Structure formats: C-alpha cells, structure tokens
C-alpha cells in the first residue's frame, strides 16, 4: 500500500512537472501576443504598431487622450484629514475639488474659482463669504456648504488628531478647537444655507484663496465617512469625489487608474479620458519605463539621468524651482553651538558654489537666504525684498577660523579647534554630503566631524528630543507666504527643534502675521530672516529644484508650487 502511494506521489510530481514544463514553453510565445492585444500608449510601441497595423486607420498621429503618470509612493489614505503625505494629496486633488484650485498660467500660480462660483470679503479681510455653484458629487448628490463645514471641522476635531490641522490655523479659534479648549462649534466656519459658506479668520491671510485649494479645506461627505468608518478612503470604492476625474481602480503599491468624471461641473474643459498613476519606487525603473514610452513624463533627480534624457533630444525638459531650502541646523543646547560666533563660522566656512559644483552637479541653486526665491510676500518676490544676508555675512567675516576661535574664547573653551569633535547626524541615504561637510569643516575650521548616519524615523525622533549635535535636512513651504517657513524658528515650535530662542524674532513675526499693512509685513519678515541668518541659527546652503522630462506630445500638466499637480487641463497633442 505504502509503496504504491509513494510511487503515485512521485508520479504526480513528475506529471505536474511536465505540465508545468508545457507552461514554461508557452511563456515564450504568449507575451508577444499580449503586446499586440493590450493597448499600450507607448510612443515607441505606437509608432511601430501604427506602421504595422493597417486596420487602425492611417491616422498614425492620432493619440488617445490617456496620460500615464509616474508616482514614487503609495498614497497613505484618501481620508485626507488623517494623512499628510503629498502622494495622497495628489491623488485626492484629481477627484476632489475645493472652493478654489490653484492652476499655473504662464509659469505663475493662480487660484481659480471651483466649487465656489464667487466670494465676498469684508473690509478687514476676516470674513469670507463663498457662493457655491451648482455642482454634484460623482454619485449624484449635490455639493453643499455643509460638506465644507464638515470637512474643515473634521480636520480641527481633536478626536481626528489630524496631521494637517496646522494648515488652516488661520480659521477663527482653529487652534483652540484642535487643542480641545473650545468646542467644535466655536470654529469660524458655518453654512448660511446650502449654497453659502462663511469662513471667519483670526487674522488676515493674503494667501487665503490659495489655501482654499488645499486638502485641509476639501469638502467631505459626512454620510460616507459614517458609512465606511475607519476604512473610509482606503479603497477606490470607498471614496466619492466631485472633481474632474473618478478613481476607478486602486491596486495598492502598484497603480491607480482614473477616468473622466462626466458629471464634473466643468467637464467640457477636461480633455483626458483616462489617467493612470504607476507607482514605481525605483528610479531606474521609472526612467526606463519613460524611455520605452510607458510613462508620459518623469522627474530626473541625478545628473546622469538628466544628461542621458537631454542628450536623446526627444523630450521636453522643465525645471521647477521648488519652495524648498536645504540647510544645516544645530542643537544649541550643546555648549559649542550656543555661541553665535561659532555658528557663524560654520556658515561662512561653507562654500555654497562648491557644493553645487562638486556635490549636486549644479542641479540646484546655491542659497544665501532662508526663504527660497520662488516665494513671494504679498505679491512681491521675497528675495528681491530681502537681498542675500548670508553673502553679506561672508563679506563681513573673511576668516571663519578666527571667528570660531573668538567664539571659543567667549565660551571659555579650549581654543584649539582640532580638539573639538562634533557628531553630524545625517540620513543614511545622503552620506556623500555628510562626508563633504566632514572634509570641508576639517579643512577650513580644523574641527573634527564624525558621521552619525541614521534612518529617517530615528532622525526625526532624535531631532525632536534634541538628542543630536548638528544635522542637515530640507524644508518645504506649505503655502506662499514667508510665515510658512519663518514660523519654524519661533520659540517653542517643535517641527525642527534647535533650542534657539529670540524674543525679538518672535515679536517681529507675530506682529507681521496679524497685520494687513504690507509695508510693516515686509519690514518685519525681512528683519526676522536677517536675524536667523546673521545669528546663523541655521545655515541654508541650497534651494531645491526639480527637473521633469515630458514626452513631446504631453501638454498642460500644471505643477503649482504649494498644492498638488493638476491634470484636469492636461491633454495629449494629436
């Protein structure tokens, strides 16, 4: 009996092996057939296919209105009040529209009316009344002012513990509500009727209409949140939008596919029929996919990729200045860094042009200010107002080492820099720059630097706990106002703790932020930035840029600086 059984088993194994062997040989043939039957929107594939297939009419130039977009990361969730990642915001912004949306026209960002058809603002700029248009959610339910009230109060609700509540801190009583000291009903937002929404602010906000396009102010359907509970927004069928596209399918960590929303209020303006996001975390694969036509654009972040894509001459390149500054920061509880002269020495000893030339291969811009050049203050470019404070600092102090020794003297420490050893906390993925700093500071200041590479969560945790000596990272502004980046250094802000505190700085900013006097705001912000840079609280060294390559037939993708990329006006040129 047992012998038979064992024989049987061995036999089935061989048989299945043979059958599978059959599969193996089929494998060789099938993909070719697949390639021809699956509609691929690849340029290369299309041109060759168009040449081969005659049944597809001879209009080989006619392309389908399908856009394939690369995506680096899986979106956390479409329950926007509970997440803060940009991937989620980008996905949501294609299917949901707020009161306004920010579009890019001739390189400039502009808020255009969306769910709000028009609005009135009081003279003190504190009360905004929005008149909603007749629009509907993709399931046919009309969009009401109450949806906005629910969406915004949900972000402010302490029970939500929303990571994006600070984005709308200007709404009256917002921060008190978030901290639980005032009830939800005290928040400065109410629906006057189904189509009229009133929002009250704590202080005038020059960028308010742009902020209305952000995810923290999106309308949310209370009935759906209650229906799906915690799983709201986790799958394609657990979210309903009111925007230009409908999310048809969401294969987690792989792809998202959208189609045009026929019930969208401005559907006539939407030319794309399909929109596909492909989540590809490997840069090599992304560029490869772009080169063989599977993606309609790609962002290239290394000099090699940029050179390779540029030299092919086939693509259209766009360079975008991001509202993001890269900087070095210190823990000023460490005795050495509690002295301004020491910090200044570190700032002056940094050759920012050299960093660009040798480390970043000129992909970015050398920074001599904190607020990046792409940002404005009440409509005027901030850098034009503020000049280049770090350059002035360098000009005034040609010898960083002398300054360092002076600082050491003030501290009463040993005046020999070679006896100083500093731990440089860095992300384990960016150690090349850390090594550059190590070498540079040793050559110019004589100090020793030890690298302390850590993973990102650890970096953040140690930063927060002031468990570091020196580190570097980048920070991107959330909205087009210097306060978005200047607030970081107000006493007690926990975003990037450095233990630095300046009552003058705090005072300058709080007055500027509550004022509508443009001159006073300009004066205060410029002065505050100067304090941060002259005290070398932080050392900015580069402004980030991003390089995007488009297939030549892709038109009108909008990349506003502070809100998500929009595809509603994008199209494929025929």
């Amino acid at each position, binding site marked *: 009996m047992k012998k038979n059984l064992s024989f049987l088993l061995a036999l089935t194994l061989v048989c299945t092996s043979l059958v599978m062997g059959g599969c193996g040989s089929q494998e060789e043939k099938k993909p070719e057939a697949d390639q021809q039957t699956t509609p691929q929107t690849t340029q290369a594939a299309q041109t060759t296919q168009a040449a081969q297939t005659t049944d597809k009419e001879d209009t080989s130039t006619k392309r389908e209105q399908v856009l394939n977009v690369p995506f680096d990361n899986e979106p956390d969730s479409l329950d926007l009040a*509970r997440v803060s990642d940009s991937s989620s915001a980008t996905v949501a912004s294609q299917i949901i529209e707020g009161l306004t949306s920010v579009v890019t026209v001739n390189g400039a960002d502009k808020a255009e009316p969306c769910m709000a058809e028009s609005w009135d603002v009081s003279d003190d700029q504190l009360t905004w009344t929005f008149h909603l248009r007749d629009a509907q959610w993709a399931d046919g339910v009309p969009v009401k002012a109450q949806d906005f009230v629910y969406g915004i109060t949900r972000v402010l609700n302490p029970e939500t513990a929303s990571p994006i509540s600070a984005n709308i801190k200007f709404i009256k009583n917002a921060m008190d509500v978030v901290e639980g000291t005032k009830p939800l009903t005290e928040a400065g937002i109410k629906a006057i009727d189904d189509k009229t929404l009133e929002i009250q602010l704590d202080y005038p906000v020059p960028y308010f209409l742009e902020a209305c396009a952000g995810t923290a102010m999106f309308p949310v359907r209370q009935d759906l949140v209650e229906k799906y509970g915690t799983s709201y927004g986790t799958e394609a069928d657990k979210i309903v939008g009111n925007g230009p596209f409908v999310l048809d399918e969401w294969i987690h960590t792989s792809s998202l596919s959208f189609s045009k929303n026929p019930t969208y209020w401005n559907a006539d303006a939407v030319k794309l029929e399909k929109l596909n996001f*492909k*989540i590809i975390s490997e840069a090599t694969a992304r560029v490869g996919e772009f080169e063989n036509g599977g993606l309609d654009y790609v962002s290239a972040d290394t000099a090699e990729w940029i050179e390779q894509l540029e030299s092919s001459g086939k693509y259209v390149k766009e360079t975008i200045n991001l509202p993001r500054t890269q900087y070095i920061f210190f823990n000023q509880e460490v005795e050495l860094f509690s002295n301004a002269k020491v910090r200044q020495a570190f700032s002056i000893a940094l050759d920012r042009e050299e960093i660009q030339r040798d480390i970043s291969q000129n992909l970015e811009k050398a920074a001599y200010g904190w607020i990046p050049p792409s940002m404005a203050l009440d409509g005027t470019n901030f850098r034009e107002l503020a000049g280049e404070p770090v350059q002035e600092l360098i000009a005034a102090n040609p010898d960083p080492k002398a300054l360092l020794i002076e600082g050491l003297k003030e501290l009463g420490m040993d005046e020999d820099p070679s006896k100083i050893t500093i731990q440089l906390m860095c992300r384990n993925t960016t150690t090349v720059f850390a090594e550059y700093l190590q070498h540079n500071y040793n050559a110019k200041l004589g100090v020793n630097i030890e690298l302390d590479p850590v993973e990102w969560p650890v970096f953040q945790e140690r930063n927060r706990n002031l468990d570091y000596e020196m580190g570097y990272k980048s920070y991107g502004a959330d909205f087009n106002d210097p306060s978005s980046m200047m607030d970081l250094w107000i006493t007690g802000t926990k975003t990037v703790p450095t233990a630095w505190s300046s009552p003058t700085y705090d005072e300058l900013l709080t007055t500027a932020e509550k004022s509508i006097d443009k001159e006073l705001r300009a004066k205060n912000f410029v002065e505050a930035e100067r304090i941060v840079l002259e005290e070398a609280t932080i050392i900015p060294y580069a402004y980030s840029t991003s390089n995007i390559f488009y297939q030549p037939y892709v038109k009108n993708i909008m990349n506003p600086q502070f809100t998500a990329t929009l595809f509603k006006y994008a199209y494929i040129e025929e």
Partner: protein
Amino acid sequence: MLKYILKRVGYTLLALFIITTATFFLVRLIPGNPIEAMTEKLPDSIRQQFFEQYGFDKPLTEQYKLFWENLLTKGDLGESLKYRGRKVTDTIAQYAPVSGRLGLQAIAIGVVSGIILGILSALNRGKLVDYLVMFIAIFGISIPNFVIASLLQYFLSIKLGWFPTTGWGTFSYTVLPSLALSLNSTAKYARYMRANCLDVLNQDYIITAKAKGMGKTHLIFKHVLRNSILPIITLLGPQIALMFGGAFVVEKIFSIPGLGSYFVSSVSDRDYTMIMGQTIFMAALYIFAVLVVDILYGFIDPRIRLADTKEGGN
C-alpha cells in the same frame, strides 16, 4: 501518526508564540516610532492625541496584553499605522496572493528546469553537457536574483520591449520577475538532482535493470527519477512558504504589489502592527510547510519512520 501530528502542531503553536512575542518587543526597541513622520509639524498636545489614539501612551505590557486580546477574541491584528484605516489582515490577504503567484511560477520553472538539467548532467557525467549545467548552477547560485532582475528588465524590456517594464496585471507582467526568481532554484535543484542521480545510478538495482535490458527512458522514469526526487521535496516545502513572503528586491525593481516589498517598507516606516501581522503570517506559513513536508516524507519514503508511529508500520 495522529499523535505525532498533534505533538508537532503543539510545537508549532509554541514556536509561533515565541516569535510573536519576540517581534512585538523587538520592533518597539528599534529607535524611531511610526508616527514621527505624521506628527512632524504638530504641537505637543496634538501629538499626545495621536499617541492616545494608537494606545502608545499605555505601558508596553498593557499594549502587549491588548494585542493578544484582540488577536484571540476578534482575530484582529489591528490597523496599519502608516496607511490609516487599512486592516492588517486585509492587507496580507491582498498582497500575499501576488507574491504567492510569482513564487509558485518561479518554483515551477526552477523545479522543472532544475530536474531536467540535473538528470541531463548526471547522465552525461564528465561531458560538455555536465560542465555546462554545472556552470549554470554556479552562476545561478552566486548571482543574486536582483542583479538578474535588473539585467532582464534592462535588456528584455527597456531595450527590446518584449515585456512590460514595471507593474502588475496580465501574464506578461509576471514573466521577467518569475524568471529572475527562478534562476536560483533552478541552480539549486539541478545540483541536488545531479548528485542524487549519480548516487542512484551507482546502485545495484540500476545495474541489474540495465543488465536485464531495460530501456533507457523506462529506467530513468521508473527507477532513477523516483528515487532521486526525494530531497527535492524536502527543499520544496519551506521554499514555497518563503515565496509567499515574497522576494522583496525583485518585487521592488518591477513595482509588483507583493508582500515582500511591503514588508520591507513596513519595517522602515516602523509600522508596528503591519510588521507583527506579516511576521506571524510568514512564520506560520514556514512552520506549517516544514510540518507538511515531514509528514509527507513519511508517506513517500517508507524507509523513514516518524517518531511514535507504531501504527505506521503495518
């Protein structure tokens, strides 16, 4: 036999308990916590609300108790800390089949080609075929699968355009990753098969069969293959289990929504609940596979007697 199985299942559960407990405390010992990224821009009071929402304000022992309570009473492994609202159990159910399919295809290719190559090389011992197969085997074992994956992707997809570069969907998407994953098992099985075949070929009963004039095909299928395939089965069980856990680098290269790449990102995100869920899943799968192989072995090879199997001898 039944007693033996019950005993083994008991050990399995004990092993699982130890693995779960160790993982629970170990992941919390790694510096950095999962909600740091999310609360970066928040004041302390709101951060506190976050911690409370996830129960991180409670002492570790209480969190541990809560974990078992939820698992045993509700079969609930909790929600992902990164992808808010997604249940760990749902996520595993969604990702594991993808990795599983990829793994099974790779093993199928590996077993079939490995067995064929192994037999070929054993029958042609010392000849060119033998050296060729052994070259493939050493190549396959020493080159990591992600290198193969990148090469396949670059040449067969980006350059030649035969297969999709990344993504998941139709069969053609699975070809390159399956091939990349299979090379290692091909090599392994080929070597095992060759060694076993040579061993079997030298046995007296083969010589007897040959002397009696048995045909070559019959000889190979009836006697050689059957006797030399046993060790392959030993390897197969755990390998199938591991394949469900995915091949994280290959999955990442091809952007395949499988469990492997997800597991790795869970660890770097410090997504505690997700790490727990996946560890339990993979450990259970692995231990179960080993158990099944052990039991199967007893059926296939009468020479092996399982402990305490008095009724197995009849």
